[in-house]
């Protein structure tokens, strides 16, 4: 009998680390992607609005759109992405071992993850916070959860936040920890736990997708943590880090300058010097990244700017119905702030 819970793919990834011969110091991720003709992108196994496959295997979501934008910038084709669904346990090993080129999977940036895993956080693609979902009408604040059983998915920052929150507020909470997110939500909806906790976006996703009557469940307004979610790449390839970072910044900057999927072609003729720089009509910023000058124009044409990606996948018109909130641009009261593309 194998320890099934220690996933096969985790084991395989570990074996890859074990077996791969000592490699050259700086792996040329971009060269490998170009040679392969495909970007390999690690995504969530299924989180509505962020990364989710439909019945014919097409992936969509905010995290998926980012992969498409990177593929458009590097390979000139947003469809040349291979999506590798990864659970919380598998994700870091998969990236470390080279199974994926980039991890775009609602992963919280923390010091220890950034510094000790041999990985880099690219930036924040979604500002989130950990919240609680409870049955409607019972309690109004998370501080009233004393004595409650709370369903959690294992292997996330969530577990520690929950403990910190309970200790700080001097209440007792019983975490019931499941390996799979489906098991955790299933136990919550069956009534085993009085609350389910994860990032607020994840709660909205779960409520829209899995609740029989979404209105019967409320997401408490208090958030107990900061969860800056963003993509990750391996250490040791600074050029690749720069590309992935500036694609994200470029999508945010594009929203600030009003460059959209629909108007990106016309905007190339814009007299605004910053727009000209970004779209490669006046200056060539792409050469600094080892790309051509149309790199960002292609990314925007493929997915739209950050605001469009947000609205299409998780915004108020989607089942998730998340307000823009902290994910608004800096000049609209949010935290989204891209360093200038110049």
């Amino acid at each position, binding site marked *: 009998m194998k320890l099934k819970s220690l996933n096969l793919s985790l084991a395989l990834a570990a074996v890859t680390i074990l077996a791969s011969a000592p490699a050259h110091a700086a792996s040329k991720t971009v060269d490998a992607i170009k040679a392969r003709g495909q970007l390999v992108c690690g995504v969530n196994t299924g989180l509505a609005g962020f990364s989710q496959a439909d019945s014919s295997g097409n992936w969509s979501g905010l995290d998926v759109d980012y992969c498409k934008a990177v593929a458009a910038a590097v390979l000139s084709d947003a469809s040349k992405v291979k999506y590798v669904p990864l659970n919380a346990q598998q994700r870091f090993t998969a990236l470390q071992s080279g199974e994926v080129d980039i991890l775009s999977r609602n992963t919280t940036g923390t010091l220890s993850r950034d510094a000790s895993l*041999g990985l880099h956080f690219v930036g924040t693609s979604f500002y989130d916070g950990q919240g609680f979902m409870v049955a409607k009408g019972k309690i109004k604040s998370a501080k009233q959860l004393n004595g409650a059983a709370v369903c959690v998915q294992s292997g996330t920052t969530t577990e520690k936040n929950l403990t910190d929150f309970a200790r700080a507020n001097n209440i007792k909470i019983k975490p019931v920890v499941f390996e799979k997110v489906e098991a955790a939500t299933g136990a919550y909806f069956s009534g085993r736990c009085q609350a389910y906790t994860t990032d607020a976006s994840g709660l909205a996703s779960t409520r829209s997708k899995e609740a029989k009557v979404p209105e019967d469940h409320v997401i408490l307004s208090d958030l107990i943590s900061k969860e800056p979610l963003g993509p990750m790449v391996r250490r040791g390839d600074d050029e690749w880090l720069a590309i992935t970072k500036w694609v994200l910044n470029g999508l945010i900057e594009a929203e600030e300058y009003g460059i959209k999927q629909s108007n990106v072609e016309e905007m190339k003729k814009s007299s605004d010097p910053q727009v000209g720089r970004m779209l490669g009509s006046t200056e060539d910023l792409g050469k600094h990244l080892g790309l051509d000058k149309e790199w960002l124009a292609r990314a925007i044409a493929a997915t739209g700017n950050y605001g469009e990606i947000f609205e299409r996948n998780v915004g108020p018109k989607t089942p998730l119905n998340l307000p823009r909130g902290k994910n608004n641009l800096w000049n609209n009261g949010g935290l989204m702030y891209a360093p200038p593309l110049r």
Partner: protein
Amino acid sequence: MIEARPLPKKKTRSISWNSREGRSVIYQIVAIASVAGFIWLLVTNTLGNMRRRGIQSGYDFMFQPFGFDVSETLIPYDVMSTYWTAFAIGLTNTLKVAIIGIVLATLIGTMLGIGRFSTNFLVRKVCYVYVEIFRNIPVYLQLLIWYIVFTETLPSMDEAWEVGPTFLSKGGFFFPWPNWELGQSLALLGMLLGVVGSYVYARSARRHFDLTGHSRPVLPVAFGIIVGLGVVGWLIGGAPMAWTLPEKGVFMVEGGANFSPEFLALLVGLVLYTASFIAEIVRSGIASVSQGQHEAAASLGLTKSLSMRLVALPQALRVIIPPLTSQYLNLTKNSSLAVAIGYPDLVSIANTSLNQTGRAIEALSIVMAVYLTLSLITALLMNWFNASAAIQER
């Protein structure tokens, strides 16, 4: 590295390709050297790769505080407890379900196995159908099914079923538990002494029977010794009477002791699954005792139950014990599926630790070492039991 030492020379043997012994020695040295070389290659290559990729490694994280809560634990811990404590919590939870599970599975499995020989048609068929159902459904599915059954059918905490001071709900089974004081510890000690005393008594009774042919009562006396010494210990410890009683809180029943639905689902699933295999093992063991043995026992005037106990079962045990050992090992290892239904066993804790620290290889190596140790201990105990049950030629 391994040094090839020349074997002590014997006159009749030589290490030569032409002799059978010589070849086998050479084969073994080559095999051991290549396995050791392969492991050395894996380890150095892994460490090298991890260092090159900036992945921190080592077991130093085990002394850091783990800082996440565990829903059920047999040992105390707090915010600053180290990862060692977390792994110990996981291990004790694994042992709890494994030990209780092994005892229950053995009892149920033995009864089912004997039931297959019942003269009652219904009993025979029920046992048969049970075995066929439970051993043919993957245990993972059984665990999930039991968990769903428990969490879906039991009432919510507000409407917990109450029988006296016990509560049953989706939150688990709650029951009163004595406050653990000196008296309880001494009672436990007394009962342990009682077990030892009973064993000594049983041996002397056996000797007496062998010498004189007169049997002395064993079970009632053993029972008396164990309970008596337990009570004495309790009295010496000041006869503590205090209990904590479960009481309904806002969200759940608090106080007393409890079995969580995760524990119950895991226990029931593992026990019912393993019992079906044990039933088959017991049945085949009994079937292996030839009919002549029963007839011989009957001709000596032994009753049916005495002939089962004194003649058939001791012989059947020799067939039963080895496969029974592997069932015990399986049950222990299958308990690692607990992570699917939220029971904080060793693997579940290791999973969380792995994700908090990113030390995948280290956490997995600890889990593997623990299961290996548990398996070896189980096998050792069972081998010892097997040796004591083996045929003693006189």
